[in-house]
């Protein structure tokens, strides 16, 4: 079952899904075949997807965060509750 067939429990679309859908929407709008209602629906959906893309791009666009695995493991081990 594809993600789009699961109501309510749908995970947010990935960047590539969102970007591909936006391209599809714009192709449909550019074709000029969409009715007024469909156009408004597609524009609304497209804006939401662009926000998803922008969020994903912003997450990898602010500043490179470099971590060393050894330090990360050590930190997590220190933070772990004693058994």
């Amino acid at each position, binding site marked *: 079952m594809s993600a789009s067939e699961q109501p309510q429990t749908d995970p947010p679309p990935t960047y590539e899904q969102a970007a591909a859908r936006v391209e599809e929407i714009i192709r449909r709008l550019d074709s000029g075949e969409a009715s007024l209602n469909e*156009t408004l629906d597609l524009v609304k959906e497209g804006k939401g997807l662009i926000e998803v893309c922008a969020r994903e791009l912003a997450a990898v666009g602010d500043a490179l965060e470099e971590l060393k695995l050894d330090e990360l493991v050590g930190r997590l081990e220190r933070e772990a509750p004693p058994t």
Partner: protein
Amino acid sequence: MSTSPFSAPPEDAGIPGSTLAGPFPVGEYAAALRAKLRSLTRVQLVGELVNLRPSRARVYFELRDADGAIPCAVWLKDWEAMLAGDAAAPAEGMQVVVAGGCDYYPGSATSSPGFSFAVTDLRLAGEGDLLARIDRLRKQLDAEGLLDPQKRLYQPVLPRTIGVITGESGKARDDILAALARRGWAGRLVWGFAPVQDRHAAPAIVRALSDLCAVGRAEVVIVARGGGSLADLLCFCDETLCRTVALLGTPVIASVGHHTDRTLLDDVAAVSCSTPTHAAEAAVGVDCERARADQANAAARLRHHAERAVRPRGEQAAVAGRLRDHARQAVLARARLLATLSRAPATHLDRQRTRLHQELREVRAASTRRVASERRRTREYALALRRATDMSIADCRRRRPRELEQLALALAGHDPQRTLERGYVLVGTTDGEPLLTASRAREADEVKLRFADGTIPAKIDRT
């Protein structure tokens, strides 16, 4: 010392107290060493060919087995002749037999010396054991279906976290950073530094892979190492490492050695790249800067379509606005006209009022004149009447008594009372209306009989 091949050293030039001969010029000694090595018996050696390095004039490689190694060199023309004679070209990891002898390049003031086994002939000693072992493992992994699982994993084109396993001091690290920067990617990069070419490498890489996925939450992992001999890259053919990668839930991008090298890790990984730069580009599937521009463009296009979609309503609104303007203009014009028309009666009234006032003044003037005239005429009439009255009164005073007397006589002659006094009866209705005919008297039931001295009721007898 007369038998020494070296020139005599100067007096007191050596180390005081040393019993050794010399000091001799190093160049002479190096030449003597070369001569000595070249005089050694020429032999055949067998071992694994590794670290093959062709250059412009010579081809270098090492012949190695478990106990030691010898650097070898062969002139390029001899190497090509050897390739022409054999069906298969010698390659890394193959067992080969070489023939030749020791040689020494004494160096110079500007170049370094070097020892090598000068190879004059070579033949393959069957397929190299190492390559054969690797090939057997590859076939086994393939038979178990372990070359495919990684390739079926979902790999995000825009991961937020990337894990990298490489040597801490290797050039691969800089190449990856530079490639990610060119992509415009600045997410979370977790480095899992590990040895990448000794017997400790494979277990360390396995541990780093597991930790990167579990602790670092990497969405994709790059395993990178620069070029090297097959022996150097042997750790990337480790069975445990390959099985771990094959069953890992996170896609692994392998970038081990140069494009001519092929390790088992390249076979089991999701993606195999020839360089760390390519691996970084494979990890981030989009140019983030371009993607940002594309999204901005897409947003603009959506805005354009949205505006175009609602434009008819806007046009309707504009038309409605224009109609409102026209209506307002029309209403204003009508209002101005009505105001003009409404002022017209007032103007007319004013005009009429003025005219009436004028006429009134004229009438008043005329009436005043007329009254004066009439008054004058009236006075004249009154005067005339008075004179006439005076004359008439005088005349009446003279004639009236006699006329009254005559009139009284005439009137008495017509008085019915005088007739009644002579015995006549006047028959009338009960209302006093005279009944002048017998037929009318018969029609009445009751009548009144008026005598000179009174009235009595009577009934009509119709019999």
